[in-house]
């Protein structure tokens, strides 16, 4: 009984709302659906292109191989930090060696003294 009452009230209201959809809403709905499909289509094509590009480029590379070093490389921050580490390591090594030499000299002096 309750279900019948609910249906009898809601179904006409839903249909009423559908009928009440004016031209703007219908146009809006079609724009939304078309827009979503266009966005999806464009990005799907991009996705397919990206997926295919390694194969296309591999074929192109047979005729026109990719140059190894055509342009000047950008400064590599990693490389620079690597250089810094090498310099620091060298300085550390020299200091350590010098310290060892001084210690050895002091020990020898103490033994002799």
């Amino acid at each position, binding site marked *: 009984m309750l279900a019948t009452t609910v249906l009898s009230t809601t179904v006409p209201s839903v249909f009423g709302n559908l009928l009440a959809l004016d031209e703007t809403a219908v146009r809006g709905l079609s*724009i*939304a659906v078309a*827009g979503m499909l*266009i*966005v*999806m*289509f464009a990005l799907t094509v991009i*996705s397919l292109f990206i997926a295919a590009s*390694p194969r296309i480029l591999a074929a192109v590379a047979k005729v026109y191989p990719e140059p190894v070093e055509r342009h000047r490389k950008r400064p590599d921050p990693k490389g620079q930090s690597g250089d810094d580490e090498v310099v620091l390591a060298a300085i550390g090594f020299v200091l350590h060696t010098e310290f060892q030499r001084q210690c050895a000299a002091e020990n020898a002096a103490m033994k002799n003294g």
Partner: protein
Amino acid sequence: MDILQEFIKTTGFWSLGPGNVVMIVIGIVFIALAITKDYEPLLLVPIGMGAIVGNIPLIEGMSLSVYDMHRWVIEDGQVNYQPGSVLSYLYFGVSWGIYPPLVFLGIGAMTDFSTMLSNPKLVLLGAAAQVGVFLTFLGAIWLGFDLKQAGAIGIIGGADGPTAIFLSSKLAPELLGAIAIAAYSYMALVPVIQPPIMRLLTTRDERLIRMKPPRKVSRREKMIFPVAAFLICTLVAPGAMVLLGMLFFGNLLKESMVTERLANTARTAMIDIVTVLLGFSVGASTEASTFLTRQSLLIFGLGALAFAIATAGGVLFAKLMNLFLKEKINPLVGAAGVSAVPDSARVVQMVGQQEDPHNFLLMHAMAPNVAGVIGSAIAAGVLWAVLT
């Protein structure tokens, strides 16, 4: 005494309305959020300061507001030129949609498409998240906005400030201030809005999925991509030509390796200057009389809805893709499809690491993130073309 009374009437205190006070407080809140919470400080500080400047009451007869444009006036049969205010000239770049493409140029020069090129299926997540744009567009129509206004409001779901400003300057300039503020506010609130939706729509096992590290992308692929992607996008949706043209041009400057100086300028000094002008003039356009309206409140409500739908759209589409894929995608990555570069990718990383501290999703999330930028620009192009 009369002179003193006249002077008092020209001060801001005399004509400061409650609306101005509210907007000045909002401006201060923006600045405070940027400083204390680090929410999009590069945008919220200029917008916040602009909102404060734009809500100082005007003196009658003085050309101060962003809306005091230059004009030709006929007086005594003679045509006289009246210059606009300084702010109106700065706002010119917003109202004519000049700043957003310049911002896109800088973004292009900053963006590394490598992760997207190494995993092309993640591009689809950037498309799925655009459902937020079109559902919000329908919601705005349902709330009584006309088609053009609804299109401009819907693009907030793209989570892309420059795109939102560009489209609203073309379709609904009268809503530009509210749309820009809503878009940037929600972009700043990405770390607050997205995580609950992401957790709600995913299981723990899904959040623990680890993805394969991306493959190495060749130089040639990176150089060809901007030109090819531009051609594909704009042949499908020519309306996106301006934004995507500048985005991919910026990226070409970066990847070609022969225009390093130009790329460097585009991604540093130029984008900074444009961001300052854009943020400040958009903020200054939020005069209480034009901003504090019922429409603005509705736009803010719809903007929140747009972000939530876009996030859910990306996550759910990733789950759908997993039904067909052998190598599963972590569905959290879908949430990054809402552009908002790189904040939404960072949120994905954060939520993923809450479940598994050794799971690094950031590089995977950057793929739908940059695809989302392209997707929202295409959506804007479609709406602009259809609604003009």
